[in-house]
C-alpha cells in the first residue's frame, strides 16, 4: 500500500523547487539578475531526495547549479532568492550572488568552480571525524566535475581515511556541451568507486522514490563509518547550461523529448494518480507552490540593492586597509 501522504510531500517539495527556479527565470526576465543564471529544471527529484536524506548537522557543498541543494539543506528560501536577485536582504548581502551562497549556520555553501566543491566537503568530513560527530558531508558535482583532478584526489583522501563523505554526482550527461559518453572512460561514474574501495551507487535521478532510497542508503553508509560513497543520479537538464545558452549542441526536438519523457514531476504525478490521488489535487499543489514563489519574488524585488558605499566591506574580518578604498 503506497504511503500517499509521504508521496505527496515529495511531490510538493519537487513542485516548490521548480517554482523557485521559475521565479528565478522570471526575475531574470525582469532584469533583477544581471549576471549568469543556472537553473535546475529537470533535476528536482534529486533535491527532494537530498531533503529527506539529510540530518541537521550534515554539511552540503554545492555547485553553480545549487538552488535545490540549498533549499534541501534548509536555507531560507526568501534570503536565497534575495541573494540571487542581488539584494541587500540576500543571504550574503548581495556579495555572493546565485553561484556563491553561504549559510554557515546551516552548513551550506557552494562554489562556481566545477569540481572545487568536493575538497571543501572533504574538509567538513575530516572535521566531523576529528570531533567524533556522526554528521556526513555531501559534496555535489556534475558529470563534468567527475572528470576533474579534485574528484580523484578527494576520493583518494576520503577513502584512505574512511571519512563520512557522500559525493553526489548529478549526471545530466552534459558538461555544458560535451556529452558524458564522449569523454568518460567508464559508462557510469559510480563504477569508478571500486577503484577507491568506496561504495558506488547508480540511480535514476528522475525517480524521486528511487533516488531518495539510494540517497538515504548512501548517507547511512557514510554515517556508520564505512567510508565514502559515490552516488550517481542520472537526470536531464531541461534548459541550457546557463540562461542564454544557444544550445548548439542539441536540437529543440531532443530537448522536448527529454522534457516529455524524463520530467520527474510529471513522472511522479503518474505514479500518484495510479495510487489513487486525483489529478486536480496534484495540480492544486503545483498551483499553490507557484503562487507562493511568485509572491516571494514580488516581495524580494521590493527590497533594496546593496549600498554602493559598502562595496569594499568584508574583504577581511580584521579592519585592514583595502587598497582603492577612499582615504
Amino acid at each position, binding site marked *: 500500500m503506497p504511503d500517499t501522504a509521504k508521496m505527496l510531500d515529495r511531490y510538493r517539495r519537487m513542485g516548490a523547487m521548480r517554482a523557485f527556479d521559475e521565479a528565478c527565470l522570471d526575475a531574470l526576465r525582469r532584469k533583477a539578475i544581471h549576471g549568469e543564471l543556472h537553473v535546475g529544471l529537470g533535476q528536482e527529484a534529486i533535491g527532494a531526495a537530498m531533503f529527506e536524506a539529510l540530518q541537521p548537522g550534515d554539511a552540503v557543498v554545492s555547485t553553480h547549479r545549487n538552488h535545490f541543494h540549498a533549499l534541501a539543506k534548509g536555507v531560507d528560501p526568501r534570503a536565497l532568492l534575495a541573494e540571487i536577485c542581488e539584494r541587500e536582504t540576500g543571504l550574503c548581502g548581495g556579495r555572493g550572488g546565485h553561484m556563491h551562497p553561504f549559510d554557515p549556520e546551516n552548513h551550506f555553501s557552494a*562554489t562556481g568552480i566545477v569540481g572545487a566543491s568536493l575538497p571543501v566537503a572533504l574538509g567538513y568530513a575530516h572535521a566531523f571525524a576529528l570531533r567524533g560527530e556522526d554528521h556526513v558531508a555531501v559534496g555535489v558535482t556534475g558529470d563534468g566535475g567527475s572528470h576533474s583532478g579534485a574528484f580523484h584526489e578527494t576520493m583518494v583522501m576520503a577513502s584512505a581515511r574512511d571519512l563520512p563523505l557522500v559525493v553526489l554526482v548529478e549526471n545530466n550527461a552534459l558538461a555544458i556541451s560535451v556529452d558524458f559518453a564522449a569523454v568518460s572512460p567508464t559508462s557510469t561514474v559510480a563504477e569508478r568507486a571500486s577503484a577507491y574501495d568506496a561504495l558506488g551507487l547508480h540511480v535514476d535521478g528522475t525517480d524521486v522514490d528511487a533516488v531518495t532510497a539510494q540517497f538515504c542508503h548512501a548517507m547511512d553508509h557514510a554515517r556508520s563509518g564505512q567510508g565514502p560513497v559515490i552516488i550517481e543520479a542520472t537526470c536531464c537538464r531541461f534548459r541550457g547550461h546557463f540562461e542564454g545558452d544557444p544550445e548548439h549542441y542539441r536540437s529543440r526536438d531532443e530537448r522536448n523529448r527529454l522534457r516529455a519523457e524524463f520530467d520527474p514531476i510529471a513522472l511522479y504525478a503518474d505514479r500518484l494518480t495510479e495510487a489513487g490521488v486525483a489529478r486536480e489535487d496534484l495540480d492544486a499543489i503545483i498551483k499553490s507552490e507557484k503562487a507562493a514563489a511568485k509572491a516571494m519574488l514580488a516581495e524580494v524585488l521590493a527590497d533594496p540593492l546593496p549600498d554602493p558605499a559598502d562595496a569594499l566591506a568584508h574583504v577581511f574580518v580584521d579592519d585592514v586597509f583595502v*587598497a582603492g578604498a577612499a582615504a
Partner: protein
Amino acid sequence: MSDRRNDRMAMGLPAVIAESIALEMERDDTIVCIGEDIGKAGGVFGATAGLQERFGADRVLDAPISEMAFTGMGVGLAQAGMRPLIEIMFVDFIGVCLEQVYNAAAKIHYMSGGRQRMPIVFKTAGGNIGSAAQHSQCLWGLFAHLPGLKVVAPCNPHDHKGLMAAALRSDDPIVFIEHKALLLQKGRDFRHHPDIPDRAYTIPLGEAAVVRQGSDVTLATLSATVETALEAAEIVADEGISVEVIDLRSVVPLDTPTVARSAARTGRLLVVDEDYLSYGLTAELSMRVIEQIGLDGLRQIDRLALPDVPIPAALSLEQAVVPGTDAITAKLRAMAQGN
C-alpha cells in the same frame, strides 16, 4: 649571556616555527595541520618536527600528493569551525591548488557578506637557494595581488614565532612564506636576531620593523633580503652612508606609514624585493609612499627586484638576477651621491 639564552639564540628557524605551532595547538584544539611530509618526517625543513608525535596523526596529517584535495580541505575545515594550517611544501607548487586559495579561501568572507570566516594559514617556503625556476620563487606579490589574503614573510626566528602565532589566531586567510635560505641558516648567523621568548607571544600582522636606523637612505625590504640589506648597510656605513633598513614583515597588510615616515626624513627610498619586478612590491610600495608624502617629499626613489625572467639554475646566472649585497651597495652608493 646565560647558557639558557645562548641555547635559545642558537635554535634554527625550523625549531622555532615548530615551537610556535606547538604552543598554539596546545592552547587551541581546533588547530589542525595538513601537508606533505609534515608528520613523520617533521617537514622537509623540520619546521613541524615533533608535532605529530605530540598531537597525533589526525591533527598533524601526512597528506598524499593531493594538494587540490587538502587545500580545499582547509576551506572545509575552516567552514566547519576548525583552524587549519595547510602546508604547501614549496610556494612554487601552489599552481596545482591555487583554485582553493584564491577563489575559495581568499573570497569567501567577502562573498558571504561577512558571515563565513576563513581562518586558514597556508604555510609555505619560497626564495632562492639554487633550486632554479620551479623551486625558487617568492610569489608574495602574486598573493598580494589577489584580494582577501594576508601575506606574511618574516626574516628572523623571533618574528617567525610571533607572526606564526598571530597568523594561527587570525580569522582571515594568511599565506605565511618562510624563506628556504633562512630555514637552512644556523641560528647564530642571523644578523638581526632579537631574543626568542619561551612562551607564546604574537606580533601584530602588518607592522613593519625598523631594524637599523639611518639618515641618508631608507631601504625597505623583507624576508631573507633583510639579512642582505643589513650586510650592505654595514658595508656602505664604512663609506659614510647611513642607511635605515626597514623589514616590512608582511606584504598584506603593507605598513606604508612606517616606510613613508622614514623616507620623508631621509629623502631617499630604495625598495628591494627578491620577488619578480613587474607589477610587484617595489612599484606598489613606492607608489603608496608617494601617495602619502607626495613627489616633493622625496629626492630619490629607486628599486631592485628580480628581473622578469624564470630563475636560472647556474650559480653565476642566479647571482646575476637575485638582488644581492653587491647590487644593493651599488644602488645605495649611487643614491647617496645623488641629490
